[in-house]
């Protein structure tokens, strides 16, 4: 470095305790980039303990990733070079690796992982069960229309007969039980009530309720019980027509609560907690409903129609993708100030799938019609951490239910699985 380049005082700190360095300010040349800073930290660390490899670090200033040279960053943000900069550093996130590809016969519209299994819904009216290693376990001719949503009810990995639900264009929701020992899948209950295609499903944390959103603008809350006496009773009260149609012994269930309010189709639904449900709709709104009181609690107006949302219980934020190229970050708790907290722009087409990481409250993935899955850190709104290519056509859904695996399904009849590598020590 030149003698003449101005220096800035910087204090480094980290939340990853194994990489902590002394809390003394360093004078660093203002022109340094991420790599120089990284080697600086490495040098500091090596003084303490001997490591074989140097670790790559990322640096955050004011909760935002440093992606350019320090002086450029300071200029952009109008930060004075007189003060001591507080720079947080974290270990550079390792790149995800493509793990597997699950080939279907038709477009895969939805998927969810559970333990080492993957459930996918297809446009050929079937539900497929896969192991994450790529073996196809089962194909279930489940519906009479394209399957639009699948969700595992059972979260317990030990359960040998897990339950899952599926919603379809045929306006029904089926509750299925997968008997792993018998290698059978049985339809336990058929939930009827929606008058249009069921586009989204969500299970609450206690696995007792699930809600469904449909093209008919209704939000319905259902019980997840695989079998209940209520069903029969309710079944008898249901209309003759529906009875006629099903012609089977499969019991029919009706919703516990139906809530209307959206002016357009509900495209995505998520539980915020045991009582609150957040829905996203084509009418450009996010609405939060109190299930117990069957009320609409609040409403967030968005600029475009929403296609998918994801809620992170750990940071309480909602990310939403819609009919434009921006992913928007909402805070459902705040009522004042800017509605959109942050916008993440990198995709080129509609964003049809978003999913928070369940382990890292800063990371989420997004899938778009442009065929790319992007891994984002919410502190870096300008550019994603990684682009994951592989799909040859539109992506229709993404899933990050299994913390290690990021999955996406698309119109190229594939599910692509990428492995998410964790840090050695996960930040708190």
């Amino acid at each position, binding site marked *: 470095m030149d003698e003449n380049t101005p220096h800035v005082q910087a204090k480094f700190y980290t939340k990853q305790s194994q990489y902590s360095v002394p809390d003394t300010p360093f004078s660093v040349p203002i022109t340094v980039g991420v790599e120089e800073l990284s080697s600086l930290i490495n040098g500091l660390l090596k003084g303490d303990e001997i490591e074989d490899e140097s670790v790559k670090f990322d640096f955050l200033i004011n909760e935002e990733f440093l992606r350019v040279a320090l002086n450029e960053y300071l200029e952009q943000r109008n930060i004075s070079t007189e003060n001591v900069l507080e720079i947080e550093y974290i270990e550079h996130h390792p790149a995800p690796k493509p793990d597997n590809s699950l080939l279907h016969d038709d477009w895969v519209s939805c998927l969810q992982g559970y333990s080492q299994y993957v459930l996918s819904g297809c446009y050929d009216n079937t539900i497929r069960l896969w192991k994450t290693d790529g073996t196809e376990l089962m194909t279930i001719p489940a519906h009479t229309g394209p399957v639009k949503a699948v969700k595992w009810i059972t979260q317990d990995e030990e359960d040998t007969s897990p339950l899952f639900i599926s919603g379809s264009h045929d306006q029904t929701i089926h509750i299925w039980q997968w008997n792993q020992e018998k290698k059978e899948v049985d339809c336990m209950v058929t939930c009827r009530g929606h008058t249009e295609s069921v586009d989204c499903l969500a299970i609450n944390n206690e696995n007792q309720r699930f809600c469904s959103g449909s093209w008919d603008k209704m939000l319905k809350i259902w019980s997840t019980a695989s079998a209940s006496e209520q069903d029969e009773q309710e079944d008898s009260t249901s209309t003759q027509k529906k009875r006629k149609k099903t012609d089977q012994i499969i019991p029919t269930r009706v919703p516990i609560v139906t809530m209307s309010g959206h*002016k357009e189709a509900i495209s995505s639904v998520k539980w915020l907690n045991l009582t609150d449900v957040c829905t996203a709709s084509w009418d450009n709104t996010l609405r939060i409903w109190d299930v117990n009181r069957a009320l609409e609690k609040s409403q967030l107006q968005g600029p*475009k129609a929403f296609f998918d949302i994801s809620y992170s219980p750990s940071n309480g934020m909602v990310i939403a993708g819609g009919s434009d190229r921006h992913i928007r970050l909402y805070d459902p708790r705040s009522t004042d100030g800017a509605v959109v907290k942050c916008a993440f722009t990198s995709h080129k087409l509609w964003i049809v799938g978003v999913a928070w990481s369940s382990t890292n409250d800063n990371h989420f993935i997004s899938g778009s019609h442009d065929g790319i899955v992007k891994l984002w850190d919410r502190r870096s709104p300008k550019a994603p951490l990684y682009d994951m290519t592989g799909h040859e056509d539109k992506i229709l859904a993404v899933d990050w239910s299994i913390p290690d695996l990021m999955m996406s399904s698309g119109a190229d009849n594939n599910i692509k699985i990428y492995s998410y590598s964790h840090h050695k020590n996960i930040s708190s």
Partner: protein
Amino acid sequence: MATVAAKRKISPVEEIDINEGVNLFVDEPPDSEDDDDTTDSDSSEYSGLEDEPDTDDDDGDEDDEEDDDDDEDAENDEDEEDEDEDESDVEDSAEETSSHSKPTNQEIVTAEPDDKEGKITQLPDEYEYDSSDEEDIRNTVGNIPMEWYRDYSHLGYDVEGKKLLKPEKGDELDEFLDKMENPDYWRTVSNKLTGQKVLLSKEDVKIIQNMQKFKNPVGSDMYEPWIDFFTNEKMIHPVSNRPETKASFIPSRWEMLKVSQMVHALKMGWMKPTPTRKPDEEDETNFYMLWKDDEEPEITRQYRQYIPPPKVRLPGHAESYNPPEEYLPSEKTVQRLKKEIARGKTRTIPQKFSSLRLVPGFKYFIRERFERCLDLYLCPRQRKVRMNVNPDDLIPKLPKPRDLQPFPTTEYLVFKGHKGIIRTISPDPKGQWIASGCDDKTVKIWEVATGRCIKTFNVESKVKGVAWNPNPSLSIIVVAVETSLIIINPHVGDKLICSKTDLLLNSFEEVELPPAPTDKPKVTEWELYEDAEYELGFRLKIKHQREISQVTWHGKGDYFASTMPKGESKSVLIHQLMKRRSQNPFSKPKGLVQCVLFHPIRPFLFVATQKYVRIYNLMKQSLSKKLLSNCQWISSMAVHPGGDNVIIGSYDSKLSWFDLDLSTKPYHTLRHHTMALRSVTYHKRYPLFASASDDLSVIVCHGMVYSDLLQNPLIVPVKVLRGHKAAKGLGVLDCQFHPSQPWIFTAGADGTIRLYT
């Protein structure tokens, strides 16, 4: 100029040559004048010639020309009288004669010394006494007959009053001896005044001899050739270089006297001024107006004002020979300027010169002057009456497109699957599906959200029109295939509605029976699909007699109309689905019907023929309005959901907006497309309309209709959407808005449907 000057320089030289020749030849006073004449022209050139010795003499000579002549006469007389005049006289006369004939002057001068030496000895030096050419005053007796002194011993008195004694006269013998011995005796005469003997010079003798022979005494050639110095041609130089005489500067005293005399005479009334005639009276009689009608009235004269020619811009710093640095163009600009000059524009490239001397001549001076003259001469000038209005005020204040969000901006989805030209699309009333009709003989149903083709219906021929029933509680598509309409239940969406629709369609068969036995020939035949085709979703087939080009639903979803451009009087048919009835609303052909539309609220039918749109009131069965489209060939039409505004697209790439409350002529015409318009459409909810054209673009416009009757619709073009590729000379054939979202679907000849949001 230079050549002219050169000529001038040359010509005097030639003249000089001639003059010199003349000089040598003629030896005349005019000759000297002529010399002056030539030298006058360019003094610097002829300084050498002027220095000739005789020129000085000339000046004096000319001044007193007349006086000299007088003197000559007098002296000649004297010469004759006083034969014994002394030498000075002779010399005087010789001098006088020499003034007239200079070249001979020298001869005389040489002759004189001989004479002096030989003859006149007693005379003292002539300069001792007065040598002026005044009269000889040695004898002061005056001009008297000298016979008076014959008897005296003296012959007069000198100035001091002493007697001038007669010279001694020899006797006869001396006379005789002298006569014998002196060879010059014959030319010796005695001066009567002084009584002295004077020897006549040869010249004098010659004069005498000439006079005796009645010749010119001087002996010069009187008939020398005439040179006409004073020609009738106008010369540019004065004849003489002689300075003006002193007299010409001094006011003439005689003239003054004369004038004062006349003034005095006038004062005294002795002289009368000549009466001045009055010119006016005579003019009136002489001149008259040839063309009386020429007299302009005052008003027209006011209009016919003098129009000054446009002023040339004054040169500024850039035109200076030494412009400031900031006016000097860069290399790039010079290139550009040169190009512009080459293209014939007038541009000056500022150039810097250290001094004005280094500035070259302006190359285009003549051309520029010429062009300026042409401009002034050929340019018709007229006075423009200009309103003093800020041009910005005249532009209507349109809001920025950014403020008119939402509208479709970007292509987000491409629906691929068709293998031919997609002629028509129609979204379902809920916006989940869209139906498309294609030249590959299929009708496809697509899921809007994903671009997934859900269903495909194969039909017999190319699909010309698809229309989704606007009633959300019915699941019906009408498809126009060649000469028949096919009613399809697509079985997508709400199953209950689908089954209800089927039920409805089937249940009305009984009702259909009663009107069957009518005498009128049926315009259409309704057929039912059976079995396998029924299972696929085909429900009814309505057979027409001619090819159907377009089909449209009434807003309620029961009636629908089909268009057959070649159907003549049956070109428009209105069908009722529930009663399975078709009727022909018009008994007479109206022309080539392009498309028909139902009014969204009221019972009106819009029928677009080639150039007009007629609006019929279906209840009263009468024509309610006729819109003049002002275009060559209407291709498509759309009615605003409010029902009071219509847009029309035409094959001559115009889009006309009609406000039915305003007039039957277009309220606004948009010419944004470069090729034929294929489709126009309104959005049902948002104030948007769009037009699709063969130039591969779809133009979305903001078209706000105000419920306030006083406010005219606001039309702002907001977006040009591109993406389709040309195929078979066709571009975008249909465009339809999503029923609820601000999205637009476009169907192209390239076999794709594109969704812009």
